[in-house]
């Protein structure tokens, strides 16, 4: 029995993979099958896990004289409200009363809109600001000592390139460009070291400065009230640089996760189905 079911699973798996070659009847079959199966699945799960225990049981069992079943610790009749709201969704099939269905939607959307605002403010704005500021203050930085020197030189070289070389030197002046970059990297880094020595908060972590510059740049990129020209345009460009590095990095980071899924399926075919490996 298990083998039959596993074989069905394996054949369906192969049908989906046939899509990689081209659209074909096997894929069409599998696609329509999965839509049907999941529709049936959600119908059953939603009914038995949500509606039945939370609406029907509290409402009807109590009326039959059974022991009262609480609705998340509330009076049973509270269960009627969502039940009625749920039914209201279906008024849309009767044009005359279709507008009543909006009540259900209004309760739902309004409630969640209100619910979402404050935690978003706290977790996504305030806490993130605080974390960023904390990093800048150098409170915690595991990479500070390891990558500081290398990164410092790179940062100052890039800044020198953007501010001096790109604007003022002609296309063919290679030697001048390199000299300016090297000199400003060294001078910039030296200046940074001096700053670190005179600051009373200890080492100012350069990697953490990256966090500030990056956040500033990205937020500027999403600033819609002014044209991106001049200094603002420069900051927005910095934002784009960070966004691109971020996108590349998370793309690369994701590859692993996607391969994991494929490994899971190959392991199913080779191990669970064909028993070729252990």
């Amino acid at each position, binding site marked *: 029995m298990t083998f039959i079911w596993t074989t069905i699973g394996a054949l369906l798996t192969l049908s*989906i993979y046939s*899509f990689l070659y081209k*659209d074909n009847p096997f*894929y*069409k079959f*599998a*696609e329509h099958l*999965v*839509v049907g*199966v*999941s*529709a049936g*699945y*959600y119908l059953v799960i939603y009914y038995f896990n949500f509606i039945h225990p939370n609406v029907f049981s509290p409402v009807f069992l109590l009326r039959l004289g059974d022991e009262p079943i609480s609705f998340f610790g509330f009076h049973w009749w509270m269960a009627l409200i969502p039940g009625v709201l749920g039914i209201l*969704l279906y008024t*849309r099939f009767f044009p005359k009363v279709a507008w009543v*269905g909006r009540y259900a*939607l209004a309760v*739902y*959307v309004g*409630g*969640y*809109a209100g619910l*979402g*605002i*404050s935690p978003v*403010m*706290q977790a996504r*704005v*305030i806490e993130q*600001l*605080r974390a*960023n*500021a*904390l990093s*800048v*203050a150098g*409170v915690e930085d595991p990479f500070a000592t390891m990558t500081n020197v290398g990164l410092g030189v790179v940062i100052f070289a890039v800044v020198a390139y953007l501010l001096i070389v790109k604007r003022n030197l002609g296309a063919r002046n290679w030697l001048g460009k390199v000299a300016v970059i090297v000199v400003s990297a060294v001078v910039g880094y030296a200046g940074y070291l001096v700053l670190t020595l005179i*600051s*009373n*908060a200890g080492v100012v972590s350069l990697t953490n400065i990256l966090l*500030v510059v990056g*956040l*500033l740049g990205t*937020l500027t990129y*999403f*600033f*819609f*009230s*002014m*044209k*991106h020209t001049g200094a603002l345009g420069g900051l927005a460009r910095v934002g784009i640089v960070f*966004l691109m590095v*971020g*996108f*590349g990095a*998370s*793309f690369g980071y*994701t590859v692993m996760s996607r391969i994991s899924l494929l490994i899971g399926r190959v392991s199913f075919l080779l191990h669970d189905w064909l028993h070729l490996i252990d």
Partner: protein
Amino acid sequence: MTMKLTAHLTLAVLFLAAPCAFAQDAAPDTTALPLDTVPPGSVSGLTAVDYVDNSDEGDRIEISWQASPDDGAGEGDVVSYQLWRSENAGADWDSLGVAGAGQTRYLDETATPGTEYHYGVAAYDGTSYSERVSAGPVVGRANLFQMTRLAVLVLMLVFFGMVLTFTKLAERGADLFVRRIPGLNAIEEAVGRATEMGRPVLYVPGIGEIDNIMTIASLTILSHVAKITARYETPLIVPTARAVVMSAAEEVVKEAYAEEGKPDSYNPDNIRYLSDAQFAFAGAVNGIMLREKPAANLYLGAFWAESLLLAETGFEAGAIQVAGTAMVSQLPFFVTACDFTLMGEELYAASAYLSREPKLLGGLKGSDWMKVLSIALMALGVILYYVNQESGFVAWFFTQ
């Protein structure tokens, strides 16, 4: 949180230690060990305050203190702290509980709301108690405001104030500049090309539920897109993964067709619920792309892993693709596989921008200035940190 656990453990330790103490008492003069007759140093800085939790019934009082000098230092022999409670201004002490050594906080969860209490704490070293320090009176109440969230409230109100001010300004006809969002025109171009080719437009509003703000932003954009397709009589296919979103999309599209005076061109079979299951949905949308051959694919809303499945299949099918989402993890895929991508806030901005309704622009301007304020706050925090680490603002900003 670990408080109670530690209290239990301490009790267990005391329980186990009791027989040993007893044995020692039974043979007082045969051992060379002198009995510890020096009581430990008492605690200091005792405070008792009404504890505010998320469902506050006024039955919790938080007691905190600074450790006895003999706890972990000095003689180092403190094993626990004994707590007492009194309803009678420091007389009639009732034993309340025990906190382990090293603990400096205890949560009394048995207070009667509205009753005045005094609390007493003494360190215990296994044989004797330190002097009892007391604090009070304190009254437990079901509070009406969570003080720790004051900052959230203030910033939120500031933000709302900005949004509403700009909305009012817009309504009065003030000229609010909002720069063009790159990629926004792409939506109209894509629909235009589909019309030229005589092929349908596919609009995927994501797989978020209707409570997801991205889905709502997407429905606003859908209304705009539907008006264009209605004008050109280009079929518009809207596959959805949530039943409520489907019914909302039906309303939006039907409405748009009616507004353009083409109610008969609206085809209810094109607004489809496919599946709540994420990949069943993705598989079915892929099928639509290959078989009904839309010339423009618009993915706007909340997307998860299906983003690249859709975008790669759409690319292979040769459609113009415009995406927009605030799902950070999916942006890299849309950016690499689509022709244009509205990133993060641009999705919300787009819905305001497209409608050209002045009222909606207020939100956009408010968000913009909130960003400036956020950066200023962060800068202030950092600068003050370097100037004076002890200042009140720094303490507030960096803790909690």
